[in-house]
């Protein structure tokens, strides 16, 4: 696969989407010790009351941004299964946890998308907590939003491909 004209595309190449989806299912599933399923549903979700973990996989030409949107209940569930205790949603540790989950996911994504020709490294993660959170994409870059479920929780991953500047 060549990525020379990637920015001229109006959609993220299906090979990259597929590899990222695979990484979410395997990595989050392994972290929480339960099966994670992709849900083919793009409508029905409103503003988020929870945490968004942000991280990128980038090279000198392209940046693949990953935004992991985790509702409050799911974030608390993740803390129980990942570190063995329920973290207060408002704590700094909760932000640390979601940042680390994003970091682990990005490490897997970087290794996985390399297999289809996108070689990059991951950035440091950040996390944003709040209510009524809505993601906006200025200039409408190629974007893909995916929904996942596991153990009665749901979460979303939005990925954006843009030019590195």
């Amino acid at each position, binding site marked *: 696969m060549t990525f020379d004209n990637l920015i001229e595309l109006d959609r993220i190449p299906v090979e990259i989407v597929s590899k990222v989806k695979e990484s979410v299912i395997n*990595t989050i599933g*392994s*972290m929480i010790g339960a099966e994670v399923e992709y849900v083919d549903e793009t409508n029905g979700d409103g503003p988020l009351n929870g945490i968004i973990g942000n991280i990128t996989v980038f090279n000198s030409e392209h940046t693949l941004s990953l935004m992991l949107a985790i509702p409050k209940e799911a974030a608390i569930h993740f803390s129980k299964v*990942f*570190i*063995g205790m329920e973290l207060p949603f408002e704590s700094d*540790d909760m932000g*640390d*946890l979601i*940042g*680390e989950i994003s*970091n*682990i*996911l*990005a*490490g*897997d994504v*970087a*290794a996985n998308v*390399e297999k289809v020709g996108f070689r990059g490294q*991951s950035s*440091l993660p950040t996390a944003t907590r709040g209510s009524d959170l809505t993601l906006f994409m200025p200039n409408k870059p190629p974007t893909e939003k995916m929904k996942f479920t596991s153990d009665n929780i749901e979460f979303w991953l939005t990925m954006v491909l843009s030019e590195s500047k």
Partner: protein
Amino acid sequence: MGKIKALVIDDSKIMRSAVKRTLNQLMLADFEYVDAKDGEDALNKFNDEIDIMFVDWNMPNMTGVEFAKAVRDKGYEKIPIIMVTAEKSMGKVDKALTEGGANEYITKPFTADKMHKAISEYFDEEGNIASEDDEEEKSFFKSILNS
């Protein structure tokens, strides 16, 4: 069981806790921990009393590989350096082991079993760090048993 001083380096407090909790579960040794939040912090806390190090890769100020290389450059060639990181590509693994001089590479998320497989060889039955002499002795006895 010996007292082992382990330097745990990760910019995530949660991950430092996860590493320590997993090591305690394994009961390979009686660990005493020193925390560091990045490579620079770890270099300040590193001293001759440290027996083993668990090092994240992707950290601000100084990466895990840069830290590991700095430790090796100081002449500490035998202290076990275990990279515990989210970086999974084979190129990164090679870089950690060759450029950084790490002994082992564990990818996150890790289980107690995965951690045990990676590090148990560095501990003897009394919970001390196994020296190269111990390894040579073990190899010698293994060769006798297998002959």
